[in-house]
């Protein structure tokens, strides 16, 4: 009966092309912990974000609504596999003209491998590296049209209801199939920290509420053409994101607001605005 109730969701996710992330104290930041063997995690979110031209410059902006669909599976206690597909709606505004595009973004598959997990009465520690590949399967106008490889090293610590996840990620953008007329896209370096406190709700221990704070820094290198940096590309952004997560049994409902604390775009580029996220995870 439970499987039948879940079938529409499973079909929905599989038909759209699956995607990934797992058990973490953060909402958009993954953990250095791998889920139990045989555990499925389905996740979806609604992310609304925008970019606008700096004040006093061009009248331009971009609004973006993204719905990532993620499926994660604990193939072995050490090995987690995942796949992510994003549905993306973009509205570009330039000098009063509006251009809308929508479709599927590039599919992303990844594997995370446990190299350390220490569980004691008073604390838990975990370390897991990640390797992921993004393939240019997306819709025209949405797809990057090239292959990228993501690497990461994830650390987690838990003690007394407190949790911290630290991730260090590096993205090799455009490792293959970059269109001949395009510059080589810049690689990305990211450092993220998620902090949370699990507060039990009720006496059963089956529910918990967790305030979450995510701190992120991401540097995107400039694109290059014939080894020379192209103008108006590359940026560095530091963000803070307070949020809240409610867990009830195998269901997690989460939301956060991410806002830029500082950002530095090279040349003339649109600045990043706030991001609003509402999501749900189900594990079975």
């Amino acid at each position: 009966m439970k499987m039948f109730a879940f079938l529409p969701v499973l079909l929905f996710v599989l038909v759209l092309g699956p995607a990934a992330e797992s058990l973490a104290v953060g909402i958009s930041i993954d953990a250095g912990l791998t889920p139990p063997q045989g555990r499925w995690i389905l996740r979806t979110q609604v992310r609304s974000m925008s970019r606008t031209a700096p004040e006093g410059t061009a009248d331009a902006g971009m609004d973006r609504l993204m719905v990532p669909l993620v499926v994660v599976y604990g193939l072995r206690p050490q090995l987690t596999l995942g796949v992510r597909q994003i549905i993306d709606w973009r509205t570009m505004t330039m000098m009063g003209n509006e251009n809308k595009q929508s479709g599927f973004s590039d599919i992303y598959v990844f594997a995370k491998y446990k190299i350390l997990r220490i569980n004691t009465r008073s604390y838990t520690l975990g370390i897991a590296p990640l390797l992921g590949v993004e393939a240019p399967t997306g819709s025209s106008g949405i797809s990057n049209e090239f292959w990228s490889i993501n690497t990461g090293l994830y650390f987690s610590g838990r003690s007394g209801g407190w949790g911290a996840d630290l991730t260090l990620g590096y993205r090799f953008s455009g490792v293959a199939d970059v269109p001949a007329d395009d510059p080589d896209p810049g690689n990305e370096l990211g450092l993220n920290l998620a902090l949370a406190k699990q507060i039990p709700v009720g006496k059963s221990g089956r529910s918990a509420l967790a305030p979450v704070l995510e701190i992120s820094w991401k540097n995107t290198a400039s694109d290059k053409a014939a080894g020379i940096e192209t103008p108006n590309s590359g940026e560095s952004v530091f963000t803070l994101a307070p949020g809240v997560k409610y867990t009830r049994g195998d269901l997690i409902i989460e939301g956060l607001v991410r806002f830029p604390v500082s950002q530095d775009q090279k040349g003339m580029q649109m600045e990043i605005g706030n991001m609003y996220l509402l999501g749900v995870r189900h594990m079975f």
Partner: protein
Amino acid sequence: MRPTLIAITCLALLAGCSSAPEPSSDPQVGALVEFEVFGMDCPGCHGGLENLVLEIPGVHSAKASWVDKKLALRVEEGAEVTDEQVHDAINRANFTAGERLK
């Protein structure tokens, strides 16, 4: 409008799924066994461990608690479940077994 509808449908479908089953209190079921378990840090950890313990032949029901750091299971009348089998399930859930409490 269409993206919002799809997003809401997606969230509603996931939110509609049921959570972990409570162990049965079938009076014919036999011994209660309890283990300390380390590494669970939220209610979302329960289900994965309970699923693996329920795969052990002879286990009738299982209930984990991240607050109490404990796993309680009921063994079917006449069935034999070894500590090694339970430890193996706990390990495959990426947790660590402590002392056997009952």
